[in-house]
């Protein structure tokens, strides 16, 4: 009797140990990792074009998931250009024209600075659990790290990428690789995280490569130089007036 109890306890413990979290749980943990009350990010975007590579430096102030202000710092031509995201609206300011223009409709589909990202990508809700249902399909190592493979299916009709597949670091709950698919299942974009930053208890992608799979080229690299979480940000910055300052 005592032996059977021990075995039962051991089995239960083992079961508990090997229990796979649900897709939804994993998504929530991912979102917890990358989202915060606020963020200030200094970053570089390197665009590999046919004629060579170009690096653009910027600094972004982000409040929650709805507000973001980005200022381009280098090269000289881009310096002073600003972008403001307010919910689903995107505005850009150019110092040369001293004008604030709303990027909407057709323009949203244009690429940012010639990169493999579009303005639409920039606008999307970063919290995956809001947009996708997730199923855990297995696991696979990526760059030596054990990862869950999650199949994401959109909850809504108006999502740009109907399905995604993500490889989530089992320990750190960070997406190390992402595939974005068309409705018919064709692979459209890939995102690979090359390195991570640890800030206190969070893990944040440090170097990411975006690639439009359908077109040739080396894609776009996104590197975070510095990131601060939960810092106070003057709410004034998230206004159109702040663009012109």
């Amino acid at each position, binding site marked *: 009797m005592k032996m059977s109890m021990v075995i039962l306890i051991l089995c239960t413990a083992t079961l508990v140990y090997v229990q796979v979290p649900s897709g939804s749980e994993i998504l929530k943990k991912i979102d917890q990792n990358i989202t915060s009350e606020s963020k200030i990010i200094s970053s570089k975007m390197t665009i590999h074009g046919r004629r060579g590579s170009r690096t653009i430096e910027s600094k972004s102030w982000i409040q929650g998931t709805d507000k973001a202000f980005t200022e381009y710092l280098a090269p000289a031509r881009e310096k002073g250009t600003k972008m403001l995201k307010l919910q689903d609206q995107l505005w850009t300011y*150019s110092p*040369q*024209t001293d004008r604030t223009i709303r990027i909407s409709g057709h323009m949203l589909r244009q*690429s940012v600075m010639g990169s493999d990202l579009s303005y639409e990508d920039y606008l999307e809700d970063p919290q995956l659990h809001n947009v996708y249902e997730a199923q855990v399909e297995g696991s696979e190592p990526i760059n030596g790290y054990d990862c869950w493979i999650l199949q994401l299916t959109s909850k809504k009709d108006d999502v740009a990428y109907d399905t995604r597949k993500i490889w989530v670091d089992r320990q750190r709950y960070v997406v190390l690789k992402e595939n974005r698919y068309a409705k018919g299942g064709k692979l459209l974009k890939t995102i690979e995280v090359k390195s991570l930053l640890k800030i206190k208890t969070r893990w944040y992608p440090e170097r990411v490569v975006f690639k439009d799979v359908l077109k040739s080229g080396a894609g776009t690299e996104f590197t975070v130089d510095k990131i601060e979480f939960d810092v106070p940000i003057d709410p004034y910055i998230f206004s159109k007036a702040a663009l012109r300052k």
Partner: protein
Amino acid sequence: MIKFLFLGLLRDRSRSIFPLLIVSAGVALTVLLHSWMGGVQNDMIEANANFYTGHVKIITNAYLEQIDQIPNDLALLGIDSIMSTLQNEFTDLDWYARIRFGGLLDIPDESGETRSQGPVMGIAIDILSPGSQEKDLLNLEKSIVRGRLPQQPGEIVISDAFAHKLNLNIGETATLISSTMYGSMAMHNFIVVGTVKFGVTAMDKGAMVADLKDMQYVLNMEDAAGEILGFFKKRIYNNLMANKLVQKFNQLYNQPEDDFSPKMIALVDQRGLGEFLSIYDYYAKIIIGIFVIIMSLVLWNSGLMGSFRRYGEFGVRLAIGEDHSHIYRTLIYESFLIGIIGSICGTGIGLAIAYYLQVHGIDVSYMLKQSSMLISDVFRARITSTTYYIGFIPGLLATLLGSAISGIAIYKRQTSQLFKELEV
């Protein structure tokens, strides 16, 4: 002998002046027709050449592959050096760098917010440099509907219908939103100083013309251009010369393995114009051929009539002992003289008129409601090497043939019969 015949011709008006007039007139018309058909062909491609293709065009290998997409990221770099080379080594043509681009034109209200916006196709040409002929090539001056052409940096003209659609007045600001050569967003404020009519709906719906240097700055294309267009100095396309030029340039400067190496293409290799020209050539040859035949018949008939009238004279000459063949030969020689002189005069007259039409043309802009950039309103002739001799076919050959055939009667008719016809 020639002198005798010549004097004989001069003394008898009916044998000289009338036939000469007829032959000259016929030859002049033939020459005029030939040069006119050539001119019409040139006119038909002129707008295409001036606006899109040039007589020759230089772009990079990569740009050529996607030429319909206007890929400015694949533009020519080092334009200053290329232009200098072209101006020194290829002096038969005038060279112009241009940039084509697309984007949005955004019109601000008083507070700088968007008042109206519309997609725009643009062409950047050298408007401001003194002595630049780009304005004339594109017929800009005549196509102005309102306002004026740009006179300083930062000024543009847009299509008139577009201005109406955007509710834009002359002197107002328009912000161009486009992409730089490297893909970044480009924004720039321009003053719209005038509106133009392009003449083609697609352009009239949304197009603009800006100065080249302005757009080089805006699109981050300093010392760069999408294309360089070359035009023969007489503004008449010469396919033979163009092809030679293309071969020479590409041999010297084009490297097929280098995506960004400059490559020259001729007008006939663009926009289906080669097919168009070959069709029109075919059509023109038929028209001219038929005309030459008919004109030959007219002049042959004239020669025939001329000889018919002289049967009486031949009768007298036979009666006084002149040999049949001698009379026939003199007839032929006279026809030859008439034919040559008439052909030379006619060709001269025809060429003179054709030359005037080639240089000045017939301006029909008064007939059209509004001049436009893409529909030519001046019709010109075009003189080629063929124009110089085509008149001789009806002028000389037909006249000779006419006399030769009618002169056979000298052998066939009795002297007395010819003599009697003196009175008819």
